[in-house]
């Protein structure tokens, strides 16, 4: 396909989103029209994205040259395909979920405007061909998602939004500094090449500087991926409407951070230079700390969505841990977890959202006995939790397996410690998800069933996406050979 289609898939959702406030559908009366207006471009865009993935355009599309080196360019390579595919796969589902969910929140026009725009911006990150383009969309992503976080516009959400903003922009600013160092130490256009664009001579000229640059990028982009100690914003933004927390803060936004780290590690600085340096060690250490820390915090947290948010903090660092192994196998593990964690966590968040909408309950201890009333929701939650724990037959195991074997094959002691961190986190995962499941199905003795009388599963708009995701978890859990092969081709730099 022509590379110009890349521009189409990025711009179509952005334009659709921008048109919404102009068309100004009435909140209640024009709901059907609005949904149609949103759904058609979203689905069309998803189809286009998959068409692009299957028929990769050859060559880059350069939109504009900023300076003689820097340009805004797009490209569809393997890693782009993975992230774009994930985003494109999940967006229609979560839009569908949002159609029903957001009725409870109001301000639908504004919501869908930004929500749809975010789709385009996220694809922009995925399809960037160089660091500057990625940085552009990375910043835009922050800006279009802030209104979504602040959707309720009450004090709590505004504070959360500001926190999110400060962390994200700060992270981007830190990363920018790193990017500048990158620019000085290799190909100044900073185009992504598998293996990195930093030249050996530039590295040897000032190894410390390059490593500092990598770490700046790592932590800067790591802010969005909620690396400890920059994770604070992620639990805070769980005040946002659930489709936002689910899709953006479990998939698009945070994965954008992880994606950026993958890009920076494997396509800009390059493992060849970083492998075995203190920079790798520091990055890996922080990933490990985050893995354990996030899980511990999730275990302590009693608020349902915040607990899931902390779980995201932990799981994102699985991806980053995979990236910091800096081997193709580690890369593969990171990619697997990026995909599969997206599917798992969005399911869990959807379930939390369903509970919130149907019963208004936000805390874990309030969920007792709901499993019998909201059967589909809790079925999905159970499947999601088990997948997250890493039960074989569900997709979570595959990624854990890939990460674990990658770390084992890396052979360093540090990687060994990393495996332990993964496993400890898995135990803790069990600790923060399973009690919810168990108590939802098996309430304590003397539990008063009458308080759950009114609870029931939400409508089809919300249940169908969740069930589709469950099916996906099972499918990828039981038959992930082809997709793993494809991911390995990406990880080994073959596509």
């Amino acid at each position, binding site marked *: 396909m022509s590379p110009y289609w890349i521009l189409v898939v990025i711009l179509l959702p952005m334009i659709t989103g921008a048109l919404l406030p102009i068309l100004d559908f009435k909140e209640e009366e024009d709901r059907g029209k609005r949904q149609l207006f949103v759904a058609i471009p979203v689905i069309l865009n998803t189809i286009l994205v998959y068409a692009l993935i299957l028929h990769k355009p050859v060559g880059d599309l350069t939109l504009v040259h900023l300076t003689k080196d820097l340009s805004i360019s797009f490209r569809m390579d393997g890693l782009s395909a993975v992230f774009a595919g994930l985003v494109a796969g999940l967006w229609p589902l979560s839009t569908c979920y949002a159609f029903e969910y957001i009725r409870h929140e109001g301000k639908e026009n504004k919501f869908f405007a930004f929500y749809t725009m975010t789709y385009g911006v996220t694809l922009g990150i995925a399809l960037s061909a160089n660091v500057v383009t990625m940085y552009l969309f990375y910043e835009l992503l922050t800006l279009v998602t802030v209104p979504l976080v602040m959707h309720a516009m009450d004090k709590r959400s505004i504070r959360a939004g500001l926190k999110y903003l400060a962390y994200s922009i700060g992270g981007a600013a830190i990363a920018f500094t790193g990017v500048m160092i990158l620019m000085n130490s290799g190909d100044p256009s900073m185009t992504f090449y598998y293996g990195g664009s930093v030249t050996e001579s530039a590295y040897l000229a000032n190894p410390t500087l390059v490593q500092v640059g990598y770490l700046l990028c790592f932590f800067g982009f790591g802010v969005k991926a909620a690396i400890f100690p920059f994770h604070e914003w992620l639990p805070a933004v769980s005040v946002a409407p659930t489709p936002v927390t689910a899709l953006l803060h479990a998939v698009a936004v945070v994965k954008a951070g992880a994606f950026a780290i993958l890009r920076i590690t494997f396509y800009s600085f390059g493992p060849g230079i970083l492998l075995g340096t203190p920079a790798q060690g520091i990055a890996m250490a922080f990933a490990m700390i985050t893995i354990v820390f996030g899980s511990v915090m999730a275990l302590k947290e009693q608020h349902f969505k915040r607990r899931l948010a902390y779980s995201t903090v932990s799981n994102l660092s699985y991806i980053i841990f995979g990236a910091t192994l800096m081997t193709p196998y580690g890369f593969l593990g990171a990619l697997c977890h990026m995909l599969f964690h997206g599917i798992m966590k969005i399911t869990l968040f959807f379930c939390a959202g369903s509970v919130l909408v149907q019963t208004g309950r936000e805390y874990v201890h309030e969920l007792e006995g709901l499993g019998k009333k909201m059967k589909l929701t809790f079925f999905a939650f159970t499947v999601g939790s*088990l997948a997250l*724990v*890493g*039960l*074989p*037959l569900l997709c979570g*195991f*595959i990624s*854990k*397996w890939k990460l*674990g*074997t990658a*770390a*084992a*094959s890396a*052979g360093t*002691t540090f990687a*060994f410690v990393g*495996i*332990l961190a993964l*496993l400890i986190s*898995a*135990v803790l995962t*069990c*600790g923060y998800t*399973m*009690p919810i499941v*168990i108590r939802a199905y*098996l*309430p*304590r*003795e*003397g*539990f008063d069933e009458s308080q759950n009388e009114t609870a029931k599963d939400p409508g089809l708009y919300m249940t169908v996406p969740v069930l589709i995701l469950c099916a996906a978890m099972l499918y990828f*859990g*039981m*038959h*992930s*050979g082809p997709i*793993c*092969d494809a991911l390995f081709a990406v990880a080994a730099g073959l596509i």
Partner: protein
Amino acid sequence: MNAGFLFVLPVIIPVIAGLLVYFRPEYREEAKRVAFVRIMLCVTAAFVFLIDLLPEAGLHLFSLTPELPVLFQSDGMAKIFITLVAVMWLASGFFSFEYMKHEENHQRYYLFFLCSFGVLVGLGLSANYLTMYMFYELMTLLTMPLVLHSGKKEAVQAAFKYLFYSVFGALMGLLGFFFIYNYGTTITFTAGGVLDMAKVAGHENKLLAVVFLVVLGFGTKAGMFPLHAWLPTAHPVAPAPASAVLSGVITKAGILGVVRVIYYLIGPDFIRGTWVQYAWLGLALATVFMGSMMAYKEKVLKKRLAYSTVSQVSYVMFGLAVLNQAAFIGAILHVVFHSFIKDVLFLAAGAIIYKTGRTNVTELKGIGKEMPIVMWCFALASLGLVGIPPLAGFVSKWYLAVGSLESGVPFFNWFGPVILLASALLTAGYLLTIVIDAFFPGSDFPMDTLTKKEPSYYMTVPLIALTFFIVWLGLFPGGLYSMIESFAASVF
């Protein structure tokens, strides 16, 4: 196509049956439910026995990814394990029909009871690490609701304790899995081990640490010190038939894991003479002694039995840690014997609770008159556990001691048997006192006021059947011995 396709059936039938019991409204009716479950248990067991009779075979079901196939096989170890599972489940299942009358949520109970049956058969039939790990995790998740069953506060806490210990253990297993995949030639169980020494070279220390962690991990399920604490908490709070299978079989799943990893993947040669072996021996012996001591001090009957399990399963661990053929055979024999014995003991305790509501050992004076059949079975099983010839326990302990003495492991070769002996004495102390009190409560005890409270056939028949096996296997262990020997030879 060989007999492999059969393997799926005993795994899947109970699971489907369990789901049917739970979801079909018609099984809310007691009679229909019991009939259905009975048939299903028998059918599954029949398939298991059929597999036993057929020659060894394998089945490749599907692959998660190319390197992760789900494989089944029916080698000797598998056959022994699944037979054990089937027998225990049959006995406990029949016992349940009566026992569960005084519990609630029957459908839920049978759901998990049946599902765990299927999963355990699957665990037994696993032919590679992935399959085993998968069923191992599932087993934890499916048996946990059994512990939780009553919904009482201590049951909930016990269940969570069980869950976290087990998951931790399983994940240590996963750790081993990662490394074996990297340093081995395959993940399929192969007698004698699969390690690729060329890859291992230079990484021995790390791999030894991993092996130790794996042993600890699977040892969790087997109640090995230091991760034994869940066992005395979790087993007693479950309904008695569930306790019976938990103690009798589920702990053996940990043993199966250790056997599979050490003897079929790592290979005994790799750890022989290393610190891992000594640490393992030490931990096993510590558990043996400590479990007995705790049991001796414990006053609640089911808890006492649980501590006894801690102690006895570590006999098996000790046998495995010695790393020679005689001890290995002794260990596997003890797996079988202890399962039978502990099943009987727990079921008997369940019968007592069911009929009299007594849970404390001090309340059991004269119970021999009230429930003679139950208590006779209890007495025989106790004797077996102590290791009095000609009952089952003696044979296994003999081989354990012999294996240990001829192993040549410094210090432990004589220290092990000494501890085993001491533990046997303690076992006598905590079990036989009950028996003695039950039948000979003393002259001042008003024996005449007691009435007969023998439970129904659903309870007594399984007890008698199992007790019969205890005696029979004690008298004629030859068949079993030769079967174990046949595959024990292959791993060394």
